Structure formats: structure tokens, C-alpha cells
């Protein structure tokens, strides 16, 4: 990991981004939050519906139509997140909170991919207002917890101790 960080910091991209930190950082953070809002709002709405909430008013198919907007938000947050990481990789790889954030991001994404592959096509056949099966409830719950954990550990980055060997 040390070699990777040293290499990344030596790249022109990393040095260019780091040199623009004065204005780029605050702008990217703001956009990172805009993306977060779309993910938590749109994915969270679908997760709660998967868990069976609001089922008398909102069909699964309706709640699912907001998922593309969660993907827009995720793209914004990933792009701005990469700006932070490429600028200052040494800040992040030493932090347990960052690895926790990335781990929960992988869990949230894997969970979403599994859902689409296994249940995606069957969604429209389901009774629009019916009770959701236990598997949907579990997937919705895992997604919601994972995204909130991504947010929590991201926000904790400046405060949690490194927790990993920090000799970079």
C-alpha cells in the first residue's frame, strides 16, 4: 500500500489536484454532499419500501423509478471522492474509518447488484401493494444500514484515530 501511495502522489494528476486544493476541496465537498443526499434519499426510499413501509400508498415499481437518481448521486460522490483520494491518498489509507467506509460501500453495491440480478425482472410481476417477501426486507435493511454506515464513517474520518500503522 505504501508503494501505491508513493506512486499515486508522484503522478501529475495527484499533484495538479493537490495544488488546486484551496478552491477545489470546498467545492468537491459540497458536491459530495449533494450526491450523498440523492443516494440517501432515493436509495433509502426504495429500501424502506422493500422493507414493506408505505406499501399502501407506493408500489415497488414506483419507488424503484427513483433508483437512477441514486445512481446519479453515487456518480457525483464517487467522482468527488476520487478527487479527495487522488489528492491526498496518504491521509486516507492509514485510517480504519476510511477502510470501514469503503467496505460498507462495497457491501451496499454488492447488495444492490445481487438484488437486480436475482429479483430485478420479477419485481413488476409482484402485487403492487402487497406485503414484500422476507428476502426483500433483508436486502432493503442491509442496503439502508450499509449506506448509513458509509455516511457515518465518512463523516467520522477527521475524528477517529488512524487505527492503522501510520508510517507514511
Amino acid at each position, binding site marked *: 500500500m505504501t508503494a501505491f501511495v508513493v506512486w499515486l502522489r508522484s503522478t501529475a494528476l495527484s499533484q495538479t489536484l493537490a495544488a488546486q486544493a484551496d478552491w477545489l476541496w470546498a467545492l468537491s465537498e459540497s458536491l459530495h454532499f449533494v450526491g450523498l*443526499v440523492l*443516494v*440517501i434519499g432515493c436509495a*433509502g426510499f426504495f429500501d424502506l419500501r422493500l422493507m414493506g413501509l408505505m406499501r399502501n400508498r*407506493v408500489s415497488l415499481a414506483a419507488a424503484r*423509478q*427513483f433508483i437512477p437518481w441514486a445512481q446519479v448521486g453515487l456518480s457525483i460522490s464517487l467522482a468527488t471522492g476520487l478527487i479527495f483520494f487522488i489528492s491526498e491518498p496518504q491521509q486516507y489509507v492509514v485510517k480504519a474509518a476510511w477502510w470501514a467506509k469503503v467496505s460498507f460501500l462495497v457491501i451496499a453495491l454488492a447488495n444492490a447488484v445481487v438484488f437486480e440480478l436475482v429479483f430485478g425482472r420479477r419485481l413488476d410481476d409482484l402485487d403492487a401493494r402487497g406485503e414484500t417477501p422476507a428476502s426483500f426486507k433483508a436486502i432493503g435493511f442491509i442496503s439502508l444500514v450499509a449506506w448509513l454506515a458509509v455516511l457515518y464513517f465518512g463523516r467520522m474520518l477527521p*475524528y477517529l484515530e488512524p487505527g492503522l500503522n501510520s508510517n507514511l
Partner: protein
Amino acid sequence: MPFLVWLQQTAIARWVGESPSIWAYPTILALHTVGLGIVVGINAIVDLRLLGAAPKMPVTALDVLYRPMWFGFALNAVTGCLLFAAGAEWTGVKPLFYVKLALIAAALVLAVRIRRSILESDAEAALTGRARALAVASLVLWAAAIFAGRYTAYVGS
């Protein structure tokens, strides 16, 4: 300002701002971000629907989201007051912070107006230009509030 100095010296403000506990400032800040996601995320859902997204979502059903939206707002009103108190002497003298509060107030007024004049009327209203204009205004106000909040940490007084 004497009030801001007094506020930051209160026991609760000193605990939030000075306690090394992870449950003080860091967790309150994380909860404030969760509330941000709930409040602005829900408003974004309503606004995007009024702009034509998710046509299978009945416009009249969007009002189910207002109760969780107010829960998120209550969470952020409480956590926001605690965070403000902890840094009152610094945050309280920044004009941009008051711009953020004004943007949030305007966006909330708009959210109530959207519910009353569009969601609770017939679904046809959602397709009018006025509904779209209110939705765009709402998205702009919330985005501006997020930027104002983030930049408050960077600007001087």
C-alpha cells in the same frame, strides 16, 4: 458578542465542543449529516417527481414522505443547535451561516407550499408549469443551503 461568548461557555456547549468522546462533536455532526440526507433527499424526491421523474409514483402519494422529512428536520434542528453552541463565537459571526439559515427557511416554506397547493390538490396540478417552477426553486434552494453550510467552514467572519 456577549451572547455568543456566553452560549459557547455553557456546560452543554463545552461538552459538545471539548469532550474527547466520540459521542460528542463527531457523532452529533454525523447525525446532522444523516438528517441532511433525510430532509434534502426527501425534498429531492418530491421535486424530481414534479419535474417528470418516476411517472409510476402517484403525485398525491408523495405526502407520505413529509412525516419522515419533518423527523429529519427535527433531528437537524437539535443537532444544529448543539453544533452551533459548541462553536458559537466563530460560527455566529459569519454572515454565510445566516445565509444558510435563510435558505433553509425559504426551502421549508416552499416544501409546505408544494404540499398544500400541489400534492393535496388533484394530480393534474403536478403537470403545470407552476409546479415545475416550484420544484426547480426548491432544488436550487436546498443545493444552495448545502453549499452555504459547507463553505461556512472555510470562510472567515
